[in-house]
């Protein structure tokens, strides 16, 4: 043995075949010495087969067995000599022999008929075997052929479905008001157009106070989570649902109880009469008309008596909002009129419905009255006020509906 194992001499390169031969010889020795039971491997195999359960024999094995049986059948020798003449009675053997000789013609006749029949029977069995094999082959071919047909049809359908899916995707992307799939972060969008978190906290403080004592509350579409934070500070238990992955991750990082999902889908799964409050701030204008209608019905079902919906949305009665907030967000579907929402909550039998107009247009952007108090100036100013009311109504409105 070399001391340095990395330098192995040619002599050390043991011939592995020799090793195997040695092992085989060793087994022989042990068998001869009686160290191994003769049927050790067969016993172990039978043991495992029993454990794994009876396996059906493969058809080639059965086929071989049938051939063997047929061969045996063919080799059966029909002969008078094979009829045992022995007898327990004294002289019985002699009687049997005499009778056998006397009846030899009949016995041989019967035996030869039996032999003929045996040939016929084994031929018939062989034919049956062939038929079974042919049937099996035909069956295999037919099944595979049918499988192929099914697959071809499936392939055609897969192709059709793919094309339809592709067309639907194209159409979806072209339809205005359909959900957009933005590559930019929603947090950046909000920060750019809705102001900083601190501004929003000031803006929503009074709305949040409406929900004190309304645990548990869910905030659907919580965005950056300002409203949730306000509620938490007020001691209200609140859970948030938001579709945007980044916003969910960020909120979770700040310790808020949130999950990813879509508002209406989430609400459908909530237990009836289990909620104290539902918050939806600047979200309803993203929903389709059907979902707006569904939302109010779901809110009625999921809120317990005394529970509140607090929502805020853009006020479509102010034409100013069309020049600003509404069309700024590509994900906005359509504005929801305050009168329609009020109607919906009333129809859904909410006990109390309050509409609160919010975010007045800054004075600096409104129409200025003309100076003077003569009848003409007064008339112009009255008209300006009417135009102003239509153009520069408050930008948002909130609904506080109590179940």
């Amino acid at each position: 043995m070399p001391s340095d194992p990395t330098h192995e001499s040619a002599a050390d390169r043991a011939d592995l075949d020799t090793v195997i031969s040695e092992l085989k010889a060793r087994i022989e020795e042990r068998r001869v010495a009686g160290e191994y039971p003769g049927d050790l491997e067969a016993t172990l195999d039978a043991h495992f087969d029993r454990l794994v359960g009876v396996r059906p024999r493969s058809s080639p094995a059965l086929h071989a067995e049938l051939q063997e049986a047929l061969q045996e059948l063919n080799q059966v020798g029909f002969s008078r000599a094979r009829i045992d003449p022995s007898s327990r009675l004294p002289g019985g053997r002699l009687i049997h022999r005499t009778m056998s000789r006397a009846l030899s013609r009949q016995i041989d006749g019967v035996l030869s008929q039996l032999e003929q029949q045996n040939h016929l029977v084994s031929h018939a069995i062989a034919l049956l075997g062939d038929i079974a094999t042919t049937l099996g082959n035909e069956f295999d071919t037919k099944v595979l052929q049918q499988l192929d047909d099914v697959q071809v049809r499936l392939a055609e359908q897969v192709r059709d479905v793919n094309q339809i899916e592709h067309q639907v995707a194209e159409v979806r992307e072209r339809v205005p008001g359909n959900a957009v799939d933005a590559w930019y972060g929603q947090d950046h969008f909000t920060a750019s157009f809705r102001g900083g978190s601190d501004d929003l906290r000031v803006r929503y403080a009074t709305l949040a106070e409406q929900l004190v004592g309304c645990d548990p509350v869910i905030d659907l579409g919580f965005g950056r989570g300002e409203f949730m934070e306000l509620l938490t500070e007020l001691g209200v238990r609140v859970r948030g649902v938001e579709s945007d992955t980044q916003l969910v991750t960020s909120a979770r990082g700040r310790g808020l109880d949130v999950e990813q999902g879509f508002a209406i889908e989430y609400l459908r799964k909530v237990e009836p009469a289990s909620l104290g409050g539902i918050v939806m701030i600047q979200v309803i204008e993203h929903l389709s008309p059907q979902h707006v209608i569904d939302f109010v019905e779901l809110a009625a079902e999921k809120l317990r008596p005394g529970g509140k919906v607090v929502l805020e949305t853009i006020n479509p009665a102010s034409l100013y909002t069309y020049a600003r907030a509404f069309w700024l967000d590509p994900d906005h579907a359509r504005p929801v009129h305050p009168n329609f929402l009020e109607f919906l909550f009333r129809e859904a039998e909410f006990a109390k419905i309050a509409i609160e107009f919010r975010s007045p247009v800054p004075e600096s952007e409104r129409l200025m009255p003309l100076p003077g108090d003569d009848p003409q100036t007064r008339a112009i100013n009255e008209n300006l006020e009417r135009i102003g009311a239509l153009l520069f109504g408050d930008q948002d409105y909130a609904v506080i509906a109590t179940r």
Partner: protein
Amino acid sequence: MTITRREPAVPAERRERDRRSGEFGIHQILAAASPRDAITTAALEYRDVLRKVGPSEVYARHIAPASAGEVLPLSAYGAGSSRGILVYHSSIGEPMVSAFLRSRPEPIVLVYHNITPAKYFVGVDDEFAQLLMLGRHELEVIRDRVVLSIAASQFNAAELEAIGYEDVHVIPPVVHPFRLLQTEPDAPTVKYLDRELHGPLLLFVGQLLPHKRVDLLVKAMHVAGTYLGLEARLLLVGQNRFASYADAVAAEIRELNLPNVHVVGSVEDARLAAMYRRATAFVTMSEHEGFCVPLLESLAFDVPVLAKACAAIPETVGDAGLLLPEWAGAELIAEAIDRIVADEALRRVLIERGRSRLQELTQADARVSLLQAIGSVL
């Protein structure tokens, strides 16, 4: 307080795919993908190389959650373009994948990883046996669409040629036998193996499947312990996918009273590394392997290999393993185990040969060979 969408938007990968659908891409198709699966790993490595040429994605019919980001669902494959090449990794039949391949007009590059003969699963899991049969049938069906066929071993190539494939390229899979060697072994496992498990340690790594013949290994441990007085432990490491077989192996161990044989199950890399480090020899009696990566991992850990000379095992391990004839039964295996445990000189020879075998295998970069082969049909 921002955006709640009415319904899930078009996934980003879909848009990306649609954007690219006009381009020429080389995409790979698998039946199933999971993080530690050898075929998935190979496909992802190929993808990274293929992406240097153009768009390249890996699509699978069944995707384990942990692979969901990397591998795309087959249903996400765009219907838009028919430009490009599909690289199909075959290892089993999967009706939806068959249908998919038939629905596509692109030429197919077949990478054959081997389909286990169905006979091993008849009676154990008939449904699985049917999928295996379907897989072989599928190879015949797509033959005329295949512009290039690649086999992981000569053994696999011979199987393809037997059903009419011509000019099969043999490209061994991308292997990283040293990756595990560089993994920090799990400290508690090292401690346990050193302190609690004394004496020689035999290691089997592979799924507990009928064709891996784990039952035969257990029988050999019985013979070696009872008749040869061998005192060694055997660790059976690997996923248990077929309860009927794994349960029978567990019952066999119990009924033969073999407390020195441990069914460990699937383990993470750090624990596996600890086991390879401590192992006296690697043993497998598998009768069917398209390549067999654990053999190379053993060589990397300087663990000598004892195996049967079946399927692709001889060409994978070369002369670096003690290879028993295909017909070897429990007695011969027991003798061989006894020998490899007792004969340090033999182990040393095998280890030495293993090192040079590994060098040979890791010289060629499978990814480059694959690219060249695909380049030849473009």
